[in-house]
């Protein structure tokens, strides 16, 4: 990030208005086990909606948040919060077990190899995705996608420099929103940006 980009980033951080989703009387689901527990709780109690439970304490910009109320008798609310400290998590297996598996399984290996990357770059790609996603999410540079009991998905643009060239490959990656500014990678490649 050069000085000008850093200045633009700082301005965006402080001008972006954030809200936090609240579902009274329930704990936020910080991982997959807690999300699954919320669904069980919703199924057993019949009083709560698993989608609402799994949105508890998730952070959104005012312009890009799920509609509220989400459904009749929804008792969710939102509160204004200061700029978030975004954290992005990305398993290296998204590259070793998906992107770089045999071309017979999917065509992503071919695509990334075309840009000069192979399985030995998995750790670099993991760090690059985390870095770009954290910056993008913290300034609200994301696209709101589907919402269900799994949680709220967002798309974030990733730009990768093609090795041995000054060109960049730009495409969508998909992430799941977790409470308190955390996002987790779902798919490293969600489609090309036309």
């Amino acid at each position, binding site marked *: 990030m050069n000085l000008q980009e850093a200045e633009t980033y700082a301005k965006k951080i402080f001008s972006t208005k954030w809200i936090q989703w609240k579902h009274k009387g329930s704990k936020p689901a910080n991982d997959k086990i807690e999300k699954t527990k919320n669904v069980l709780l919703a199924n057993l109690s019949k009083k709560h909606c698993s989608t609402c439970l799994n949105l508890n304490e998730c952070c959104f910009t005012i312009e890009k948040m799920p509609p509220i109320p989400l459904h009749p008798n929804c008792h969710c609310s939102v509160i204004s919060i200061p700029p978030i400290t975004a954290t992005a998590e990305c398993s290296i*297996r998204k590259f070793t077990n998906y992107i770089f598996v045999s071309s017979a399984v999917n065509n992503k290996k071919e695509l990334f190899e075309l840009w000069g990357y192979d399985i030995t770059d998995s750790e670099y790609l993991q760090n690059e995705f985390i870095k770009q996603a954290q910056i993008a999410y913290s300034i609200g540079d994301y696209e709101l996608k589907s919402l269900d009991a799994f949680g709220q998905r967002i798309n974030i643009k990733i730009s990768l420099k093609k090795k041995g060239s000054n060109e960049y490959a730009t495409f969508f990656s998909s992430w799941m929103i977790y409470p308190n500014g955390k996002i987790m990678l779902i798919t490293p490649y969600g489609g090309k940006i036309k």
Partner: protein
Amino acid sequence: MKEYDKVELIVEKSKYTNKGLHKGMVGWICDPKKINGQRLVCFDTLDDLPEYPIVSIEEDDLKIIWVSPD
């Protein structure tokens, strides 16, 4: 059935066709969770679409066509 497995949609149901998904379409399980008997599937062979659909699908409506190594 687990994350990273490649799967095929083996039924034609309105809840999937409404989202542009049809029997025979192929994707991969992109989330470790199984919720209400459903898996989150990214249909990453639909290269003509601007972006790949990521949809929760009932496990019974899927067939594994490639098992990801552990």
